[in-house]
């Protein structure tokens, strides 16, 4: 990539930083240059977030419909999957999958629920009272 071809498209990096790239200068040598972003990858990131939003919306609907427990909604909201959530709660994936069921969720102790609330960085009440 030549230095003059380095894209400077607006991106989420925005006010935070510019990124360092390796480019060829006029005499054909490598040097570094700063880029604000590239539309091609901005769109890739945007589409990843669209997907996240959709998963959150689907989880919310599932809670509303009584198909899933609030744990599924907050898990999606925090971009987690079962294995990441297992890391943050210390609860084995097998049990987490059970806790995603509303019938099991209803019978869970506050102590256990608190572990989830901490992992999601929300209060116990918020977790218990989320209706979708």
């Amino acid at each position, binding site marked *: *990539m030549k230095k003059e071809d380095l894209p400077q498209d607006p991106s*989420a990096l925005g006010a935070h930083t510019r990124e360092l790239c390796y*480019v060829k200068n006029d005499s054909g040598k*490598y040097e570094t240059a700063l880029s604000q972003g590239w539309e*091609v*990858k901005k*769109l890739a990131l945007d589409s990843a977030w669209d997907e996240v939003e959709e998963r959150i919306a689907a989880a919310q609907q599932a809670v509303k419909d009584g198909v899933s427990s609030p744990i599924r909604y907050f898990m999606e909201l925090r971009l*987690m999957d079962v294995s990441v959530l297992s890391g*943050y709660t210390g609860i084995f994936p097998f049990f987490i999958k059970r806790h995603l069921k509303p019938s099991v969720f209803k019978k869970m102790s506050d102590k256990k629920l608190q572990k989830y609330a901490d992992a999601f960085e929300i209060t116990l009440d918020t977790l218990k009272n989320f209706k979708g």
Partner: protein
Amino acid sequence: MELNHVESSFEHLQTAHCENGVTTALLRHQGLDFMTEPLAFGMGSGLFYIQIPFLTVNNGPAISFRTMPGAIFKRTCSALGVKINHKRFSSEAGAQEFLDLKLSQDVPVGCQVGVFHLTYFPKEYRFHFNAHNLIVYGKQQDHYLISDPVMETVTQLTAEELTKVRFAKGTFAPKGHIYYPESISEVSAHTVRKAIVKGIKRNIRDMLYIPGSVAGVDGIRYTANHIRKWRSKLGPRKAGLYLGQIVRMQEEIGTGGGGFRFLYGAFLEQAGGILEDDRVAQLSDEFTKSGDLWRNSAIKMAGVYKGRLTEQSDFDEIADIMLEIRAVEKDAFKRLSKLNLSAK
């Protein structure tokens, strides 16, 4: 006063990739002024390609354009005869205590962190990714002074924020991982040349001779063959998301562009100068070419997730570019191999 000293003696260095950056900045801080990001990347045999079969990451294919996290620091230091120390911790308090101890001794250290809770990162970049690296170089009251190599300037984190990212959970959970060069003896010009040659040879091995078909140059073909099937197998929307994931692994902040290929081109250019071997520098152009091809394929892939390109022929065209990339890289590493480099 001592803290000011710490602050002034460490020099922030912005690099394309975080682990290269931590390696380069820490070694430069210890007096190895010749170190550059491309040299760290090349000595550490950083260039790679792999698609891990049957595994998905963030609901997309698990693809990497670089070697394992941690390998660049370890290999580069070991090739230069630098002793390193690294530690992981079971307790958060223990991790902070050890960090404070090193800082009180004026030793800047590398830390592996997760980016999900990394407050100074743009929100859009904060996924559960745990193989990010930064340098902690001082402490002022409750604030740790942070030099994050991908950022233009230095930044700060509170003790609580730093502990949170050092104990992020999930794949590659850092467990407070801390590392730094412990003792450095005089590094001779001969050692530098040897480190470069060793790095190149290991990279030839990784890209050409790694067993199986999912890694090295053959891994590129493996992905290409998958892409041909994605349209009918996954449908256009999911296929677009998968391609988007490849583009992000390939081009996002931290890669230097073109899936680290430009960075490797820059390494060979510098290596040619140090080894006084024009043939090495000339092969740098092959990696520039490969990087440019990777970027072309990214533009095509963007056409798919934008919804502009929807035909099977578009997917075939992307796969064909990747086969061309494989051929370019295979040829380049074969030619590097034929040079029979040795450190005079």
